[in-house]
């Protein structure tokens, strides 16, 4: 609440100093009484809290969390189709749009299909990500979203912040009947489908699961590795 500050000179009563102090003591005592003897409203929506008794607006963070706004750009996820395969077709649009160059994709052809591709590697380095959301905007297939409402949980190793396709593929599936992929009946290899279905699950509570530990990841290193492999095969 805005209040008025005035530069009027102190009157006699204010110059006496003590009366104003007594008044202020009254104010502080009221505040103390309200905060010490009445419990705090724990409503995560801080602005809607009932401040008629306790005036504390603290949110004790790890135990209590405020609700993020609907447009909050959280942790990325790869959107699965209804059958569990990723919607991603490995077009590299997101990796190209990414100003931080934190997305690494390795594409593979779907066996027996003349057109379709899918990502065998899809890695996002969350430490490099600047959370601009360009990848979401760039995606033509609605395959990458930032709608998880989470931020990357803290880890003790840098590698824990590198999320690969196994950890990214999760959340509610999105499927459209007119999806050419479905219409053509393209199927991923059964083994990788099985693995994906197995791994499409919420994050572990801590960073100790096997997929958190990807030490030494770098997009550049992965890219040069892939390049070397390509050169090897072309030779």
């Amino acid at each position, binding site marked *: 609440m805005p209040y*008025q500050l*005035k530069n009027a000179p102190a009157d006699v009563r204010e110059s006496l100093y003590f*009366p104003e102090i007594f008044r202020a003591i009254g104010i502080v005592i009221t505040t103390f009484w309200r*905060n*010490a*003897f009445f419990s705090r409203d724990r409503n995560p929506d801080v602005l809607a809290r009932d401040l008629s008794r306790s*005036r504390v607006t603290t949110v004790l963070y790890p135990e209590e969390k405020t609700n993020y706004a609907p447009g909050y750009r959280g942790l990325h996820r790869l959107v699965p189709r209804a059958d569990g395969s990723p919607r991603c077709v490995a077009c590299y649009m997101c990796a190209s749009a990414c100003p931080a160059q934190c997305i690494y994709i390795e594409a593979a052809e779907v066996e027996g299909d003349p057109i379709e591709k899918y990502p065998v590697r899809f890695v996002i380095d969350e430490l490099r990500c600047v959370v601009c959301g360009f990848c979401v905007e760039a995606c033509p297939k609605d395959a990458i979203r930032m709608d998880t409402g989470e931020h990357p949980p803290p880890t003790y190793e840098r590698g824990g912040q590198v999320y690969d396709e196994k950890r990214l593929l999760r959340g509610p599936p999105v499927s459209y009947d007119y999806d050419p992929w479905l219409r053509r009946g393209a199927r991923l290899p059964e083994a990788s489908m099985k693995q994906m279905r197995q791994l499409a699950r919420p994050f572990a509570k801590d960073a100790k699961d096997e997929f958190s530990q990807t030490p030494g990841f770098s997009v550049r290193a992965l890219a040069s590795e892939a390049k070397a492999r390509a050169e090897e095969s072309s030779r």
Partner: protein
Amino acid sequence: MKRFVGMWLVIGVVLVGLFGLFEVFYLLAGAAAALAVRLGAPGFYGSAIANTITLMAILLMTVAALLTVAERKWSAAMQDRVGANRIRVFGTALGGVPYLLADALKMLTKEATFPAARSRFLFELAPVMAFAPTFALFAVVPVGPTAEVLGQPVALLVANPDVGLLWIFALAGLAVYGTTLAGWASNNRAGLLGGVRASSQMIGYEVSLGLSLVGVMLAYRTVNMQDMVIAQGTPVFGPIPALGILLQPLGFLVFFTSSFAETKRAPFDLPEGESEIVGYFVEYSGMKFGMMFLAEFVEIVILAGVVTSVFLGGWHPILFEGWLKENLHPVAFAGIGATAFMAKMVVLCWLQLVIRWLLPRFRFDQIQALCWKMLLPAALLNLFVTGAAVLLDPSLTLLAWVGVAEIVIIFAVTAAVARSPSAAAEHGPDSGHAAHAAGH
């Protein structure tokens, strides 16, 4: 609502616990006195030793240590915060009390660093000089009345010298040495400046501290603290006892303000002003700093105790006192009295924290002006008025009327809001500006 009930429950449990604790203290003092008599010494020797351990080493140190926690939690409540609650024991923060242990552990295990060019002996001596005189002040503060335990008359009072209040002045004056020596011996100019500030401030306020109590000495015709507390139990207006705050409201104000300056805490914390100089203990680390830190809190407790016993009736429970005295065993009444003393003392400690978070720091010239231009004349005026009133009417009734008049004047001036902010915004000459600003 759960918290409301819980808080009152905690307060009740603490009061009952204190009552039990004081009963135990009385029993220990009585036992020690009986033992001393059996060994051929005066009984007072035994009870004094017992009281030194129970009151000074246990009670005073516990309250002072808990005050460090209270400083965290109470100031949080005053500032709409939650306060320290990260140390959890079985899922509960226990009101922040575990921070006490964490603080002690940190102080004790911290690396002690020293300036190479320190004056070694004085540097080591300073924390002791800061702590010891402060600590010894509590010896003359009467916590409980005299009662007969195991055939020996004992009181919760370490020493009962006839000099009483003079002991307090003498030792409070000694406490200046600790801060000044700390500032000088650490060979640091910020430290030296803090020490000099501390010494000039404390010596200045010593004067008004002493003068404000002369009125009390006149009114009760004694400097012995226990006698002073007993004298406060005599009725002056019908059932109303002759409390120091009733007879000497002005003296109370001056003494309370000066005791703030003595504790060197906000708003008088210039010797340790964090934002300009760190203060006289800038070169101290580990438990040596902890001693200075603890001395500050001990001083808060003790000055609250002195104010309680000189101005607020000490161990007189005041409410239902006659009934309690008639219907209870003397030792039980004494325990209730000591509990009442503790309750008043803790409330005063709390009031010091309120004021600590209420007022911004003074400038140094303002501190000196407040001392020499306001408090000292006020104390002198109080002294003359008290002297005249006691001379005219030795039964203290006139003095009580003067005190009531002072209280009424203070309340009236406080209640008379000269300029209500909202009213001024509507009718004041600058309301046009306000509307203009609001438009944008």
